[in-house]
């Protein structure tokens, strides 16, 4: 009786699962051949090993984040301890704002240059311990143009488009 119920539950699970993430030892066809026919008559299969069925499922989060504002920023001026940026929100409204450089994650300092883009957001986060407010400033991970790139670009251009290309 216990086996039969388990088999039915698993069969239902198999039916509703859209994604099967299987161990390397078991291919999708094996799963189909070994499990599905066995479950359809209510009995458990024999000899199935290392079968992993992945069921898409979202656990109920204990947190809820509500966005209060989100901006796209562009750095326009660097100062010793701060930088100036133009911020644009999702409706297209712009503001000029000065940020303290301490707002930047030390690991991202090399991403801060004139013209750098970043996102800046303020949100509230409801947790079991109460409400928190979060600000995030994330610079886009773009490379700044360095002088040594010039010679590399020239070499590449010479290789792709040699001067004698059209000397037919």
């Amino acid at each position, binding site marked *: 009786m216990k086996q039969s119920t388990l088999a039915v539950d698993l069969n239902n699970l198999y039916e509703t699962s859209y994604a099967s993430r299987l161990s390397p030892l078991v291919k999708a066809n094996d799963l189909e051949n070994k499990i599905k026919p066995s479950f359809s008559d209510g009995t458990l299969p024999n000899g199935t090993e*290392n*079968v992993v*069925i992945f069921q898409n499922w979202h656990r109920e989060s204990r947190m809820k984040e509500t*966005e209060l504002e989100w901006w796209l920023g562009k750095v326009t001026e660097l100062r010793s301890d701060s930088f100036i940026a133009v911020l644009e929100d999702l409706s297209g409204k712009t503001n000029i704002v000065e940020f303290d450089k301490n707002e930047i994650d030390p690991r991202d300092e090399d991403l801060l240059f004139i013209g750098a883009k970043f*996102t800046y957001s303020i949100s509230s986060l409801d947790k079991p311990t109460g409400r928190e407010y979060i600000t995030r400033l*994330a610079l886009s991970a773009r490379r700044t143009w360095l002088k040594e790139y010039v010679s590399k670009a020239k070499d590449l251009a010479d290789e792709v488009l040699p001067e004698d290309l059209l000397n037919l």
Partner: protein
Amino acid sequence: MVSNNKQGIERCIFVALGSFNPAILHPQWFARHSILPVEEIEGLLAEPFKKEIPEIGATIEFGSRFLVEPTHALANFKSFFLRVDRGKFEVKCEKQEGFPLLLSFIKKIFLVLPETPISAYGINFDEHIQFAESSSSILSKFFSKNPIVTELFGEDCNFGYKIYTKIKEAKVRFRIEPSQVLEDGILLSMNFHYDNPSSDNKFLTDMLDIHFEDALTLTSKIVAGFGEIKERVEKLKK
């Protein structure tokens, strides 16, 4: 899954065509730039919950999956499903309350990645609905059976229609036909296609809210015109 939800439009599929870099679209990138709230992403980054069944040597893993590779990205967020390859960006949302989040998600991505070339985008609504009135009765209001059709295919044959038109900037394709997944139901499929008239992405980031509102309003009006909804298919098999 069939529900008796009376809301007409619950499913939206957004598709953009262009040239994309799926490798960027990692859940941590979405978290870093506050593109989605934490509850949408935390399940993707958590280890799956495992349930072992020693009797048959099986393990069931419950979780949310994502896949990010140079050529394609998949992510199953709480409110919608994202699929991106080199030429196509697609997001599918199956709950109407997720539509505002869907729109801000798309706008934020292409504001942060403005250099992404997008040639066109489409807003699609596909609904399998059973109305109080029978499907054959509703379909016959559009077109009557041609004697040639009945002679060739018999009196009991079912058929559908496609209508192509242009509404403001959108090329609209409306498809109505008997549902293959809901008995006596109708498949209503609306596609609103927008070509990019310029070299930047402002046609999307500046206009998406307006285009979406127009598309949803028209589609809702059409669905409401068919009368009372009895049932609709809530989730389609992927």
